[in-house]
């Protein structure tokens, strides 16, 4: 039975269910369950639910060691940027040990963090830096865009035998949606078609999925049927689903909150250019953040970020329904 709960509750529910299911799941991080009255602490005790100091390198590195020794740690990092101070652990240790050991060991762990938050959080708490992680062989990267996916992808991330970077968008965490009760898994690597359509494919990730759906409604009012695809994970990336949609529509718009030159959009565009070129009836359009640090001022913030108006306009341009501008 599904019932409507907020995204953040769905994430927490998945962690609690996985901890109940498997004694080797531990959860720690900065400000995690500071009170002994916290439901996770009451259910699983202080050994398995811990507050850690502000020591991202040790937090993530210890997760690698825990994983090597048979545990499944989930580390709360709060902000994706906070992983940057621990990039050796994220990039050089967690994803490489399995490969460098010739497959002798596995490193199952989840790095949970927020990404892309704006609303005045300025330059260092708003990064959509997921391609930094998606570009590292051995890491998986998931970006749940709905409460149900937030639950199902967290459960799958915990059960995955590889290190998974789990990125949630703080502008989504209070959004409500239908979430199945009990055990619920969403496979990592399978895209979801959020809205079927025949005229143009819009691939959007995380927070921009909602913006793409709003754009699709605007386009529908003009008689344009957009298909909105949410890859749900960037590594692995479900290119077959995207190519199948492009084959049907012949037009592709890529919406991404990341800066253009570090966007998932640029990677998807390259894949489609190589493997789906014959399907394309017009150039691919990228709607990304500008290559700039997210500014503090509200109008500037809106200027650098993608939104539903920019996505709809890109779709019109792809379809030749609007003049192409530089």
């Amino acid at each position, binding site marked *: 039975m599904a019932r409507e709960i907020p995204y953040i509750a769905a994430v927490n529910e998945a962690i609690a269910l996985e901890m109940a299911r498997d004694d080797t799941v531990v959860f720690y991080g900065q400000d995690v369950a500071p009170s002994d009255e916290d439901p996770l602490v009451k259910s699983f005790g202080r050994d398995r639910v811990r507050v850690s100091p502000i*020591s991202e*390198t040790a937090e993530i590195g210890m997760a*690698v060691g*825990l994983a090597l*020794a048979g545990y499944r740690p989930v580390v709360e990092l709060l902000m994706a940027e906070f992983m940057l101070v621990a990039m*050796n652990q994220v990039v050089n240790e967690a994803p*490489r040990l399995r490969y460098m050991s*010739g497959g002798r060991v596995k490193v199952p762990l989840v790095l949970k963090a927020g990404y892309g938050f704006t609303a005045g959080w300025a330059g260092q708490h708003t990064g959509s830096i997921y391609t930094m992680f998606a570009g590292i062989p051995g890491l998986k990267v998931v970006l749940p865009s709905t409460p149900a996916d937030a639950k199902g992808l967290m459960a799958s991330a915990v059960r995955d*035998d590889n290190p998974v970077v789990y990125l949630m968008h703080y502008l989504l965490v209070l959004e409500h949606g239908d979430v199945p009760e009990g055990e619920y898994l969403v496979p990592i690597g399978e895209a979801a078609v959020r809205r079927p359509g025949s005229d143009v494919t819009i691939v959007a990730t995380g927070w921009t999925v909602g913006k793409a759906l709003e754009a699709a409604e605007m386009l529908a009012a003009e008689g344009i049927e957009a298909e909105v695809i949410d890859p749900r994970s960037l590594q692995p990336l479900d290119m077959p689903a995207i190519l199948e949609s492009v084959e049907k529509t012949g037009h592709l718009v890529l919406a991404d909150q990341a800066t253009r030159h570090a966007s998932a959009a640029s990677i998807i565009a390259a894949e489609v250019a190589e493997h789906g070129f014959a399907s394309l009836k017009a150039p691919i359009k990228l709607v990304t953040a500008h290559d700039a640090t997210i500014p503090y001022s509200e109008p500037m913030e809106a200027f650098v970020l993608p939104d539903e108006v920019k996505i709809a306009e890109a779709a019109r341009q792809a379809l030749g329904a609007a003049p192409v501008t530089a």
Partner: protein
Amino acid sequence: MSTAQPADVLGRDEALALLATMWRIRCFEERVAKLHRSLQVHGLIHLSIGAEGVAAAVCGALRVDDHVYSGHRAHGHALAKGAPMDRVMAELMGRSDGLCQGLGGSMHLVDEAHGLMGATGVVGGNLPLAAGDAMAAKLGGSDRVTVAFFGDGAVQAGHFNETVNLASLWELPLVFVCENNGFAEFTPRSAHTKVESVCDVVAPYDFERRTVDGADVPALHEAIDAYVAAARAGRGPLLLECLTHRRRGHYEGDAEGYRDALAEAEWAKVDPIARLQSLAYECDWLEGDGAAQAAFEDDARAEVEQAVAFARASPPLAPPQAAALVYSR
């Protein structure tokens, strides 16, 4: 500091076993240096000649199920912990029968079956891994302990402080073993810090710590035995700082323009093998004619040649197989 005499803390059998281990490491690494010069071992190779006493004594004090984490200078730790020499050699030669199928190489030796859980090429990157591993032992109610090997160069990096703090805060069964050879890569310790002793760096955390002469195998043996027992009994973490001499350069091929070569007479004073052999003669653990000493070396060299032959007979991993190992399925 202990005032015990060497022969009081180390018995004959233990001494000879440690000698055998040190000779195995020494001969292995001397052969690796030659193979490197003839490009049969390629890449970045760091040798531990001069520090064999630490590997032998520390790993000799551990059970098979105790875990160690090493760094870029890992051959000695791997061999002493029980990794089969032929597979270590095959790994260094990039072969499919290598410890890690030739995908890791010298700096990334893993043999979890013998408790060598990981070796990392980024100085100090292994430290938090070892702490997490120790946390796993504690969570699981196991009495196994974890050892983190690192050099004095790692101590000035942030991950050392973060790991020491968390290991102390969460009282982890972890023994930090610092091999202080006085050089961080190519520059002396004095260029990196004003804190002379690594033990002093962890002083505020108030856990047991000790500095020993890394060429004094009986002293090492006594110290690490006590520390492993303490960690097993729940008194971790602890820090053992071993003052060693790095006989060779930072890596093979290093021109070593930054330091003067040690005179042979000086080397004999800091060579853990020469030191333990002298003691063995004094204690009559070895016959005076030198035959037993030669046998250690001969046995070790024979094992090394078998390892080289094993490696040469092994092909490199086929590329499609290597690509399939990126993700665990």
